[in-house]
C-alpha cells in the first residue's frame, strides 16, 4: 500500500475537469467531420484543439495518480496512456460508420484502461486507490489525443484516410500508402508528442509549491507547441491553406499560454533574479 504524499488543495475538482475534458475533446473531434460535410480540409485545426482539451484533462489525471508514490516515475504514466490508447484508436478507425469512431475509441480505450488498472493493482500488487480510474482515463486521453493528431495532420480520422496519401509524379497525382499518416509512421511522432506533453506539466511543476492553474497552463502550452509542429507536418498531407490555418491558431495559442505560464511562474517563484549570486541561507 503506497502512501499519498500530496493532496489537491483548492482549485477545480478533478471530476469537473474530467467531464469538461471528455465533452470538449469529443466535440472538437466531431467538428473535424465538417471537412467531410463541406468537402474541404480547413476544419482540421479542430483536431489540434481536441488534443489541447484531452491533454489538459490527462495531465490532471496524472497529478491525481502520481500524488501517490507509484515508483515508476511520472514519464511512465504518459507512455502507458498513449501505449494503451493507440490500440483503441487504431481499432476504432476501422468502424464502417465514421461518425461512431470517436465514441468507439473512447469505449475501447476505457475497457483497455480498466484491464490495465486491474492488472496493476491486483496482479502486480501496486494497490494504489486511484490506479484503476486513472489508467482508464489516461487510456481514453491517449486514444482521443491520437485521433485528434490524426485529424489535424490528415484532415480525417478514418482508416482509409490515415493509410492513403497522394504523390505527384510528372504532373500526375497517384495514390500511395507510403505518403500517409500510418505508412509514413507519423503516428510515432504523434505518440511521443502526446506522451511527453501529457507528463511534462506535472513533472515540471511537482514539489511543495505545486499550483493547479500553473500546471494546467503549462499543459495547454505543451499541447499548442505540439500542435505547431504537427501543423507543419500536416503541410505534407493536406492543402497548404488548411495547414496554415492550423499553424496560425497553434502559434497564437502557444504564444498566449507560454506568456501566461511565465507570469504564473513568476507569481509562484520565491524570487526572479538576473545575474545575482546565491542568496545567503543561515547555517550554510
Amino acid at each position: 500500500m503506497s502512501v499519498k504524499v500530496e493532496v489537491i488543495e483548492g482549485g477545480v475538482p478533478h471530476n469537473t475537469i474530467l467531464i469538461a475534458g471528455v465533452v470538449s475533446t469529443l466535440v472538437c473531434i466531431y467538428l473535424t467531420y465538417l471537412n467531410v460535410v463541406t468537402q474541404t480540409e480547413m476544419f482540421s485545426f479542430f483536431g489540434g484543439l481536441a488534443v489541447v482539451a484531452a491533454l489538459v484533462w490527462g495531465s490532471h489525471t496524472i497529478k491525481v495518480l502520481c500524488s501517490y508514490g507509484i515508483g515508476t516515475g511520472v514519464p511512465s504514466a504518459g507512455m502507458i496512456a498513449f501505449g494503451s490508447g493507440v490500440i483503441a484508436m487504431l481499432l476504432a478507425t476501422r468502424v464502417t460508420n465514421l461518425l461512431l469512431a470517436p465514441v468507439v475509441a473512447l469505449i475501447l480505450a476505457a475497457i483497455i484502461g480498466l484491464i490495465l488498472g486491474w492488472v496493476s493493482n491486483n496482479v502486480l500488487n501496486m494497490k494504489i486507490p486511484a490506479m484503476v480510474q486513472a489508467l482508464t482515463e489516461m487510456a481514453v486521453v491517449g486514444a482521443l489525443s491520437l485521433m485528434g493528431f490524426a485529424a489535424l495532420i490528415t484532415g480525417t480520422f478514418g482508416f482509409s484516410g490515415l493509410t492513403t496519401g497522394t504523390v505527384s509524379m510528372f504532373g500526375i497525382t497517384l495514390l500511395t500508402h507510403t505518403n500517409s499518416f500510418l505508412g509514413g509512421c507519423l503516428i510515432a511522432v504523434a505518440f511521443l508528442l502526446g506522451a511527453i506533453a501529457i507528463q511534462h506539466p506535472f513533472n515540471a511543476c511537482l514539489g511543495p509549491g505545486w499550483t493547479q492553474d500553473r500546471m494546467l497552463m503549462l499543459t495547454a502550452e505543451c499541447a499548442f507547441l505540439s500542435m505547431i509542429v504537427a501543423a507543419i507536418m500536416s503541410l505534407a498531407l493536406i492543402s497548404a491553406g488548411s495547414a496554415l490555418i492550423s499553424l496560425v491558431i497553434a502559434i497564437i495559442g502557444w504564444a498566449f499560454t507560454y506568456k501566461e505560464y511565465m507570469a504564473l511562474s513568476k507569481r509562484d517563484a520565491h524570487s526572479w533574479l538576473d545575474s545575482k549570486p546565491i542568496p545567503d541561507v543561515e547555517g550554510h
Partner: protein
Amino acid sequence: MEHIVFGIGITALAGALATVAGSAEDTESNIGSQGDPNSQVQLAPQMGFLHRIFNKAVAGEPPAYGLWCCLGAGLAWAFMAMQFNAVLAIVLGCVFATFVQGVYATTAYVGRTASLAKFGQPVYVDILKSMTTVTMAHAFIAIFCTVTLCHLINTALGHPFPLPLLGLIWGIALGAAGSATGNPYYGKERQYQNQKFGAGVPISASGNIVRYAEAGERNSIDNGWFTAKIGGSASGICFGLIVFLELWRTVVFEAINPWYAIIVGVIMILIFTVIDRYIEVWARKTYGPYTAPKEADA
C-alpha cells in the same frame, strides 16, 4: 560484393555520426542536469543548499531524445514528401525539433524552481537564457546527426522502416547510451567533488552538491565543460559502437544468410558480457570497496 563495400562505407559514416551525436547528447543532458543526477539538483535547495545549476528534466533521457529525434525525423519526412531536398529537409526538421526542445527546457526549469519557492530557491533569468541556448546548440548536433544516420540507414542501406520510426528507435537508443554511460561521471563524480573519492554519497551528504567553482559560483556550463572531456566522449564511443556494430553485422552477414547476422549478434553480446565482467572484477580488485581510514596507532 560491391554493395557490401558500399554498405560498410555507409556503416562507417553512420558510426562516425553516432559518435558525434552521443558526445553532444551527453554534454547537453549534463548541462541540463537531466537523467539520474537530476535528483540531487532537485533535492539540494530542500536541504538548504541553494544553487545556480540548470535543472531542466523534461523526462528521462531515452523518452526525451526519442521525441526530439522522432520529431526531427518526422518533420524531415514531411519536408521530403513536399519534394524538399533531403539535406534542407533534415536541417529544417532538426531546427524545429530543437526549438521544441528549447521551449520544454525553459518551462521545466522555471516550473521546477517555482515549486521550490518554500525553500528560497530563486529563478535565475541569466541561467535560463545562457544555459538553454547552449543545450539547444548541443541538442541540434545530436538530433541532426541521429536523423542523418537514420536517413542513411533508410535510403542507402534500404531499411524498410519509415524515417520517423527509425528516428524514434535510434533516438531512444541515443538517450539510453548517454544516460547509462555519461551520467555517472556527472552524478557520481562532478556533483560530489567535495566528498572523499570512492565514498559514495552518504545520506548526510545528500543534496550537498558542489555549488562553488574555481572562481565564483558554479553553473551548468562548468559542468558541461567538465563532463565533455570524458563522459561525453565515452557516451559518443558507446553510441558509435552500438550503431556501427549493429549495422556492420547486418550489412556483412545478411548478404550470406540472414541467420548469420542474428548468430553474430548473439556472439557479440556474449563477448561484451565477458569483457564487462572482466572489467568489473578488475576494478573491484584494484580499487576495492570503500573503507573508513584507520586511526593511526599511537
